[in-house]
């Protein structure tokens, strides 16, 4: 059993009681909600005649169903309109702070909370969304919860949960140029497998992680869940603190000093005990692309799609399914695979630094005529900053469509969808069958820089051949 890790410390701090069934009752410091998973939970409160216990500890935004072309109300999609309307009314009724469209603070929930300074070290954070693990980048313990747990957090500010084990993933050296956090996390999931993290919290550590910016750290923690871990985190450091400083909801003045003092005391001890430790060499990671139907089915840009015999027996069944669905042959190169759609966005890679990197690749270049390319900023703040820096113009000049913030084609709950068996180069996090809106649509996950390179060439390309990064 792990001891004295950040996870242990934060867990113990938030433990309210041990429940008879063997799980712990854990206090949730920050609860984030959105339009898709909260309405049934509010409904359950009404059924049970309960109130929201601490409305000040819940904040809401709208992201999954928002259109990214025309956001004027009412939305064209009736169901989408009904969902945003329900969220508006629930927030009003229960006095919950809601960052609505046009507020300047709306966006994908996992982009918004950090950029507003709501996400802070040492907190427990929960949201009815599996990518809540993102917030662990700040040294908080953050996990996705189901609808009935959303109800429990609203009603009690606590949930019943079994304590997780802790696995440290130590990343030595540093990423080479043209290789990003997305490549590293895809590589980790590939090495460990998509189920390895079940029952674990992942602590990402080591020189390669220290080197990463806060936004890159969020990319890593975001995809912990794709490796099966409900929660991923990184011990906070100076970068963490300076990212938070002066954000809207960051502690101010003497409270800042107090917060800083406390945050600095929060990290895994030198001799803390882990349930498991894994080491890897980050300098060996190449730009990485998925070829299959799980985020674990990835390879370096210069590698070939694996032969069945190269895979462990456990992975063979899903590999066969993937060859068939994706239309790939074992041994084929991933490089030069033609793409139809290029999507930059999502809670994994829809932040300002992602847009900057992609814009750098696209500057003075044109998107291939065969490709539909669009960029969806992760939040209104990201969009504003990008415009200030003129990135929107670079995107538009290259042939990318510039859209309004939301989840968009990450899961295609709005009208941004693949058609038929189109292939998309996507900066998002899931390549499951049908994920991007067409039951036969095919998704290749990669970094935003790689998406930009694919857009220019109309096929999967090595971004390192493009620019001096």
């Amino acid at each position, binding site marked *: 059993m792990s001891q004295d890790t950040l996870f242990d410390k934060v867990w113990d701090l938030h433990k309210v009681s041990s429940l008879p069934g063997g799980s712990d009752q854990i206090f949730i410091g920050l609860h984030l909600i959105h339009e898709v998973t909260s309405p049934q939970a509010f409904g*359950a409160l009404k059924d049970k005649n309960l109130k929201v216990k601490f409305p000040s500890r819940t904040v809401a935004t709208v992201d999954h169903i928002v259109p990214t072309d025309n956001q004027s109300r009412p939305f064209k999609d009736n169901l989408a309109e009904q969902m945003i309307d329900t969220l508006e009314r629930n927030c009003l009724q229960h006095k919950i702070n809601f960052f609505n469209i046009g507020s300047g603070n709306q966006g994908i929930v996992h982009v918004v909370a950090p950029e507003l300074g709501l996400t802070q070290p040492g907190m427990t954070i929960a949201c009815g969304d599996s990518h809540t693990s993102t917030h662990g980048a700040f040294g908080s313990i953050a996990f996705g919860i189901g609808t009935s747990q959303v109800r429990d957090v609203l009603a009690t500010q606590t949930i019943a949960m079994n304590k997780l084990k802790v696995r440290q993933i130590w990343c030595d050296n540093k990423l080479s140029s043209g290789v990003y956090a997305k490549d590293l996390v895809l590589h980790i999931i590939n090495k460990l497998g998509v189920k390895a993290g079940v029952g674990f919290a992942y602590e990402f550590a080591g020189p390669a992680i220290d080197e990463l910016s806060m936004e890159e750290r969020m990319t890593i923690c975001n995809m912990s869940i794709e490796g099966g871990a409900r929660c991923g985190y990184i011990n906070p450091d100076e970068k963490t603190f300076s990212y938070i400083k002066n954000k809207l909801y960051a502690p101010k003045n003497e409270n800042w000093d*107090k*917060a800083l003092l406390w945050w600095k005391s929060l990290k895994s001890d030198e001799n803390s005990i882990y349930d498991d430790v894994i080491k890897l060499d980050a300098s060996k990671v190449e730009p990485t692309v998925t070829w299959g139907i799980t985020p674990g089915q990835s390879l370096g840009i210069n590698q070939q799609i694996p032969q069945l015999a190269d895979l462990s027996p456990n992975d063979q069944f899903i590999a066969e399914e993937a060859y068939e669905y994706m239309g790939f042959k074992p041994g084929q190169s991933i490089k030069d695979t033609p793409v139809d759609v290029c999507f930059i966005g999502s809670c994994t890679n829809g932040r300002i630094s992602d847009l900057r990197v992609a814009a750098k690749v696209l500057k003075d270049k044109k998107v291939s005529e065969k490709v539909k390319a669009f960029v969806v900023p992760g939040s209104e703040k990201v969009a504003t900053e990008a415009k200030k820096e003129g990135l929107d113009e670079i995107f538009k000049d290259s042939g990318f469509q510039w859209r309004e913030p939301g989840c968009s084609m990450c899961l295609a709950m709005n009208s941004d969808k693949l058609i038929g068996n189109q292939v998309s180069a996507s900066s998002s996090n899931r390549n499951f069958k049908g994920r991007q809106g067409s039951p036969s649509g095919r998704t290749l996950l990669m970094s935003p820089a790689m998406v930009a390179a694919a857009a220019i060439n109309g096929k999967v390309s090595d971004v390192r051949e493009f620019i001096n990064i």
Partner: protein
Amino acid sequence: MKSEFTPPFGKITQIVGQCISLIGNDIDTDRIIPARFLKCVNFDSLGKSVFEDDRETLKGQHPFDLEENKNASILIVNSNFGCGSSREHAPQALMRWGIKAIIGESFAEIFYSNCIAIGIPCFTLPKKSIQDIQKYTDNKSLFLEIGIKNSLAKSKDLNFNLEIKESSRKMFLSGEWDATSTLLENENLIENKFNNLPYLKF
């Protein structure tokens, strides 16, 4: 759907009601509630859509449409009931139609735990007994009184020893299945945490 819906809460010790039989193995969650109903803002309206496509096909002859089953609350099913996706919408739809307990040959695992989490006890019986009940309900209504403590189902003519997982049985008797209520019992401790967490004072 029945008039006002009130979900179960607290301890569940006894269920009394009329049985409704649904014959067939491997009835999956897509049949219980088709996927198009998942884009919804609440579970309220799911009750009337339960088995929508099956009912449409049977044009009024589906057990859930028969007048004599209107007030039934104990569902009798065969094996591997509730297989397929993990959607909580499936047991929610059944519950909102009026189902309060299910007796079957066997249940799919996630469906089973979703049922427990929302307060629907699921019991198992051997194939033969299930078929006996299903035959009986073909001709006339069967009213059962199920005691959770002794796992016994009684009616005028029939008696059954039901099987239920021991952990689930305990959770119903103690009320612990109802996570919200269990968590709320520690209200003082929760307040304490709220008042003492360092970052809530910054």
